[in-house]
């Protein structure tokens, strides 16, 4: 049962208190209402999915969570504080990292360098030291490299460590993007359609990695996904959106049985 302190999942993981809360969010682009009065929360240690048909407003929602869009109405609370409009780097420093639906990596750089960029916000050394790569900057890079190597090991991409990203197949690029997001050591990881365009085997691998990330690092994960099978297997709680409105919220089995959700996905039954 969900309480303020959290709840236990079916597989015995303990979910903590509220990490992020959306309160009555409404987002408009000119006259178009992308999101209408949506509220939900994301709890510590949880895998939270946002699903819905095409154009339901899922990606807009994720952009609100990541702070990229600022809603006209409503409040975003993160770690018990109301969040003011922020620059992307401020979001990153707050401990939120994301991957993109259309991969956004540096194609000409190696996998290793791409992942290292994920640690940018954690680097402390001054400009002069960085430029000369001396003293603090050098020590710091060694420490960061170690973290990055752990992630490379974790995601099993040792064999492409030095390969330019542009030469990799799609499934591996997705994994590199996940690695880069993880390198920022986020509290909250946002995944925008992590399985889009993947074959069955790649999807299975990705599921495994998402579960392992959640399990191993205790990272809270919010993801958007089209593949219903994946969502139902993976997530602890699901928000269902349709035409910018929330039509369901709860554990997967409850959402699956929700008549509103069935209608949105399968259409209305005409007796």
């Amino acid at each position, binding site marked *: 049962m969900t309480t303020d302190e959290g709840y236990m999942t079916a*597989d*015995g993981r303990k979910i903590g208190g509220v990490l992020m809360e959306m309160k009555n969010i409404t987002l408009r682009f000119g006259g178009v209402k992308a999101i209408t009065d949506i509220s939900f929360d994301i709890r510590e240690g949880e895998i939270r999915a946002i699903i819905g048909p095409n154009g339901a407003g899922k990606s807009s929602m994720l952009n609100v969570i990541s702070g990229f869009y600022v809603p006209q109405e409503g409040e975003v609370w993160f770690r018990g504080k109301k969040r003011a409009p922020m620059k992307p780097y401020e979001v990153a420093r707050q401990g939120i990292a994301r991957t993109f639906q259309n991969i956004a990596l540096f194609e000409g750089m190696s996998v290793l360098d791409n992942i290292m960029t994920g640690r940018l916000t954690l680097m402390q050394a001054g400009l002069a030291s960085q430029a000369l790569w001396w003293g603090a900057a050098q020590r710091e890079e060694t420490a960061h*490299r*170690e973290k990055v*190597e*752990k992630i*490379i*090991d*974790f995601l*099993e991409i*040792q*064999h492409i*460590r030095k390969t330019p990203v542009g030469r990799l197949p799609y499934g591996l690029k997705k994994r590199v993007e996940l690695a880069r997001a993880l390198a920022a050591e986020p509290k909250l990881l946002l995944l925008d359609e992590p399985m889009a365009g993947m074959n069955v*085997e790649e999807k*299975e691998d990705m599921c*495994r990695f998402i579960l*392992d990330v959640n*399990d*191993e690092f205790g990272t809270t994960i919010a993801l958007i996904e089209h593949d219903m099978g994946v969502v139902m297997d993976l997530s602890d709680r699901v928000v269902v959106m349709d035409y910018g409105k929330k039509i369901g919220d709860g554990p997967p089995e409850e959402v699956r049985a929700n008549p509103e959700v069935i209608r949105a996905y399968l259409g209305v039954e005409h007796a």
Partner: protein
Amino acid sequence: MAATDELISIPALLARNVRLYGARPAWREKEFGIWQSWTWAEGAAEIRAIAQGFLALGLNRGDHVAVIGRNRPSLYWSMVAAQMCGAVPVPLYQDAVAEEMAYVLDHCGARFVVCGDQEQVDKVIEVQEQIHHIEQVIYVDKRGMRKYDHSRMNALADVAAEGKAGHFRFDADLDARIAELDYDSTCVMLYTSGTTGKPKGVVLSNRNIIETSKNSSGFDKLRPGDDVLAYLPMAWVGDFIFSVGQAMWTGFCVNCPESAATMMTDLREIGPTYFFAPPRVFEGQLTQVMIRMEDAGRFKKRIFDHYMAVARRVGPAILDGQPVGLGDRLAYWIGDKLVYGPLKNTLGFSRVRVGYTAGEAIGPEIFDFYRSLGINLKQLYGQTEASVFITQQPDGQVRSDTVGVPSPGVEVKIAENGEVFYRSPGTFMSYYKNPESTASTKDAEGWVATGDAGFFEEKSGHLRIIDRAKDVGKMADGSLFAPKYVENKLKFYPNILEAVVFGNGRDRCTAFINIDLTAVGNWAERNNIAYSSYQELAGHPRVYEAIKAHVEEVNRAVAEDPMLSGCQVHRFCILHKELDADDGEMTRTRKVRRNIIEQKYADLIAGLYDGSDSVHTETEVTYEDGRKGAIRATVKMMDAATVAPAQRRAA
């Protein structure tokens, strides 16, 4: 230095190495992008801690400890730790599916299983539904293991930590158990890959392993400071001899790659001095080099072609220390600076002093290519029951078509039917729980039947292997049928990955061909041939033309040998899928399982003999996760021209 007669077990050798070479690196593993290393002293401390941890968990004398995973120092340590406790390590093939593993785990009755990672643990848990004697599962990599029921499961690091913490309790017991080990106690049990029937557990004693290691290390003058790359399956006897036996005997360093996918990079970084690979690794590397040279600029390509011609002409002679003219030596020296040196460096062979290949026949061009670069690549012939070595090639007497002279301490004889027998200090004790097979393989005087047919060449005294003795058959007209002989000739073409020849008891020979996707795919790309799948490429008319040309060339070569000229391939087809160990068509060591293929593709074989142009077939396949599916295809049959045998042509 300790007297040789004290060195009667692997733990004893370990103790000696700590005394002699304590501060030298003994194991390395690439992890987190860096080569981590352990000296003999550090490794020995780890091994002792693991052994004490095993005692804390209640490991008994005589228990079998199964070890499953990729080559990692901690798994090698676990094997030696098990030996210290008086138990017997049983390494298993890590890519075996759960049901294959179930047979071996059931047969050896292991109470303890050491797994590399979660994947292996999952398989063991699946197996535990059928067999119930497994009491402790120990894993190395902690990843993903947190949620498992740990009532009978431990991380290896925790086992070692517990052993270390409680060492006062276990020191006396452990030392007593190490002292009990003698030359005839079991060192290791290794399962044969099961080319025919169920795998058999080959029991090898300390004497087998240590005598063999001593003799073979001496033969090739291995020494401390040598480096090997441990990347071949731990369940294979060769890996046990190279990475445990010889490493312990001579005190050289065993290097473990980061993962299977990084093996080639790791090979280049380590630059081993002693290297073993099955022919397909050398073939794969050569194919890669050739593909890359095809894409190189014209200038580079001309330099490469010119100096490779020089190397082919004089390289092997220089390697064998034969007299070579000054001009040729100079040309070879320049070639070494421009081509061979950089190429060897790219391949990771700059430091190789002794290289071996075995398991299958290697193509003469491939063999000569490496030798002409100045890499001392040699062949050996062996099997699990012999602790590897039966024959091997001495330096300076290396040829692609023989397997060398009997190894030191090994006697070899040829039976009347052509089967090769041997007797050696490495000859196995017995097959575990299988006295009938032991008796039928090893006679009272210790002679072991290899199951291979071969003969000694009169001139050189080298052994030549023709085929598996049981595969050698008769054609309908009584002439000799040696499928492997023809298959090997076919496989020497880069386009052909596998070939299976049929014809026993029939009037003509036919063949199945598997194309090599890398080589044929690259050829297709260069010739603007579009294809969307393996199946489509395999069925492409121009691929058929190319393969037909190869088959006919082989027929001409086979016809030159009057004894074997009946084995020419009259008709062939290109299979629509790769033969795969997961489908049971090959063994884990990639040897063709003839009977299974004959049953499974009976419709295609019938098509090859009844003259039909094509056969529509459906084949069951097993995916990596164990699920099954089916591939449907229409497979074309094609005739190949044959040549009349030499003596008849003369008539």
